[in-house]
């Protein structure tokens, strides 16, 4: 079970959080202008890296705020935590 440092509440058990998938997948500004494959890409296609991965979490049993986490998908080490809307920090390999 992960120990996640919510930017507002500090370290809490993973049980208190909901997972929100890959971060920085913005809703297209002009959905009407997209082809079906582009729209499908937005809806369904996500990265699956072996290594650092920026993803969204929600402190659903706490402050109910969404935020972003960079987690190493092999070791589960959490490399960064930052509020939603901020750019992904540079993680050195």
């Amino acid at each position, binding site marked *: 079970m992960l120990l996640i440092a919510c930017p507002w509440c500090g370290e809490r058990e993973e049980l208190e959080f909901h997972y929100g998938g890959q971060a920085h997948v913005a809703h297209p500004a002009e*959905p009407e202008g997209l082809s079906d494959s582009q729209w499908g890409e937005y809806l369904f296609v996500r990265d699956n890296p072996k290594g650092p991965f920026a993803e969204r979490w929600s402190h659903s049993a706490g402050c109910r705020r969404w935020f972003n986490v960079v987690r190493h998908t092999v070791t589960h080490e959490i490399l960064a935590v930052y509020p939603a809307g901020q750019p992904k920090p540079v993680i050195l390999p």
Partner: protein
Amino acid sequence: MSDPFRLPHRPARRLPAGGRVDRSAPLRFTYDGTRYTGLRGDTLASALLANGVAGASPSLYRGRPRGIATAGVEEPNALVQVAGPGSEPMLLATTLELYEGLTATGLSGRGRLDPGPDPAVYDKMHLHTEVLVVGAGPAGLAAALAAGRSGARVVLVDDQPEPGGSLLAGHEEIDGVPALDWVAAVREELAARPGVRILTRSTATGYYDHNYLLVAEHRTDHLGPHPVPGVSRQRLWHIRARRVVLATGSHERPMVFAGNDLPGVMSAAAVRAYVNRYAVLPGHRAVVLTTNDHAYATALDLVAAGAEVSALVDTRPEPPAGLVDAARRAGIEVVTGSCVVGAYGDAAVAAVRTAALDADDAVTGPVRDLACDLLAVSGGWSPAVQLWSQAQGTTRYDEDLAAFVPARAAQHVDIVGAARGVLDLAGCLDGGFAAGAEAARSAGFPAAVPATPANSGDTRPSRPRPVWLVPGEDGDPSTWHDHFVDLQRDATVADVHRAVRAGMRSVEHIKRYTTIGTAHDQGKASAVSATGVIARLLGARTPGDVGTTTYRGPYVPVPFALLAGRERGPLFDPVRTTAIHPWHTAHGAVFENVGQWQRPRYFPLAGEDMDAAVLRECRAARAGVAVMDATTLGKIDVIGPDAGAFLNRVYTNAFARLAVNSARYGMMCRADGMVFDDGVTLRLAEDHYLMTTTTGNAAGVLDWLEEWLQTEWPELRVRLTSVTEQWATVAVVGPRSREVLGALVPDLDVSNDAFPFMTARETRLANGVEARICRISFSGELAFEINVASWYGLAVWESVIEAGRPLGITPYGTETMHVLRAEKGYPIVGQDTDGTVTPWTWAWSGSSPGRRTSSENARSDGATPAAATAGNSSACCRSTRPCCCRRARSWSPTPKRPCPSGRWDMSPPATAAPPSAAPSPWR
């Protein structure tokens, strides 16, 4: 009459002195129906051996005789079921502490769950610590001491009743005193430190992400099967540690030769533990077989305890001269470069056959017979890397140690002592002190590394010579049906050979094909031996070329009762009830669970079955008046200047221009265009909407709204609050509901013109309770929903029943609700949809007469055609506004009469003649 607890015909196997047993505390126990005595401090296994009992049931598949083979958690044979309340199966005699009156039955690999209730209490504990040390052998004690002296919080867990680990089974010296005196001093120092907690009889069973470990603590099992008042039987500790030091020791491997499963074939380290710790002699005439230095101590201890050791057979051509000399001085014949090639006997080992082996492990020279009743075997040592590997740490094969040892850590963990392949006492102490200090330091507590005291175990063991597969005297591996690789599974070399011949090369495939390593013991002792056999049969050089299988928790079996803790029965899952629940209960409602809510399903009168009750309830709603507790419908306050704009985006239809005190049906889609939820949303003020959701999806809808608000539209000034439990909702339904309303709220004009469909009124009931009354319907009938603060819910319900009694008001439940809504074709998201339904497919579904538009899903109340009152446009999907249901853009509701058949077009109830009604029996 003779003493029934004396069995004079068995040879005396309890040594006259020594051991960690209390000779003043004899304990009576029963095994397989026979009564024996043991001593406090015994395990069931040591007590059975003391009585000359082999201590295991016949093997599961082949019915071969088996006996106690080890002295710990790696035991493959000695499984028992213990009698008592909540009788527990599949316990190990080797870890079961003896108590007065213990009654156990041997099991052949399969137990039987007790169908009766378990009266014991199981608890959970949650703990944070800087340093967690697993294992209280010499390395673990040293680590805990070094870390504890830094002032850091330290937890030390060990599965035995007392700390000491391997020291309990030997007679080493530390700091000029017997090792167990040093252990006692360390324990005393640790216990005196306020930040240190020692958990004995506690097994770390699982090692999860971010240094999260589960520890199963046995609190009363050693006292007997009955619950001890005020003390839980077991506790599951959830421990989060900054740093972990694993000092989990190692398991001695068996060797694979013909007849290696006979009773009397035992781990050499276990023999030493039985002699030294339990003062039991497992046999009188022993042969010792070893691949390494350690079994020499066993041979010497056996001789010192009065046993005869016929021979010490060492696979190494040139074992260390000092060890050989010591053995020979004790009168033991040391046979080098040789191996036991077979063990023989009917019910137990009676003789072994030994032969010299060449460098390729082939038999050379004559085979020799040796009579014995005990064969102590040391096939080498496998570091207990189970927890390390669960934590995603890697292992590598070490040729010098002939073992898989820890390589790279994946978490903040260190591993010391025998668990990392360090087999000498001095090395264990050194490593423990260093790791404990380092763990404290990296957790922020400056710590010094204590000096390692002088000790008797400062000789590093010499290189072992593993013999992974001892050849049979005849035949080839395909015929070696008595060379056991996994005793619990009765799997042999012939079985592994068949797997290899079938083309399997991966150890994972062979494991699954042969089932080796999958039994109760999870191959703790035998897995690496099995890997060695596989390597030999595949022609690989070492087990390192084959690799190991994956380790998973739990390390030892854990009862489900312990995992459940107190979350059993009514505490298993929370139940939500409404403010009106007591009335439902008092009036005989039959309940069903909707999500976590308990809702009345129907209200049977005397002699009614469900069908009759539902028919009666439906009739009342259609022809008279009925009442339903609608409190469980999800309610979300949507407040803020941009609330209307927000709703426009999350619904497929528009809400921004909805008039205050008006309601509108809305449908919500996911980004992929599938229908997600629906419900009626009411505008209470310019900047305040009250959204309703389906009962089961209320939390999911709130999550969904918050996600979009926070992550995509943070610029919108909107706040969301769940108010489901703040409001009680009483739905008054039926053509005569208006009359009930009239009686309840005499000051409110409830006429069709003054209070039209899909509007709401804030008012005060005649009984003084403030209420919000909405004219909305989920039955197709004229209906009013009365919303009051929850704490008035019951009183208002009762006043509705009272006001409706002259009209025969009838309470109804979810079953009637479903009939009423299904007759009108109103869907329920999640029941009539499955996540693959778009508004488009829904609108065109053939479930109702004629073409159906989504706006017809809106709940007309029969007084007003639905299409005229539901959503005014499919706003979001045709606009350029950002919207989460872009895929639904092609859908547009066509205002049309709901149903060509006219079935839906009911006359306004205000003009209908009220049907005659008997007064309601409901109070």
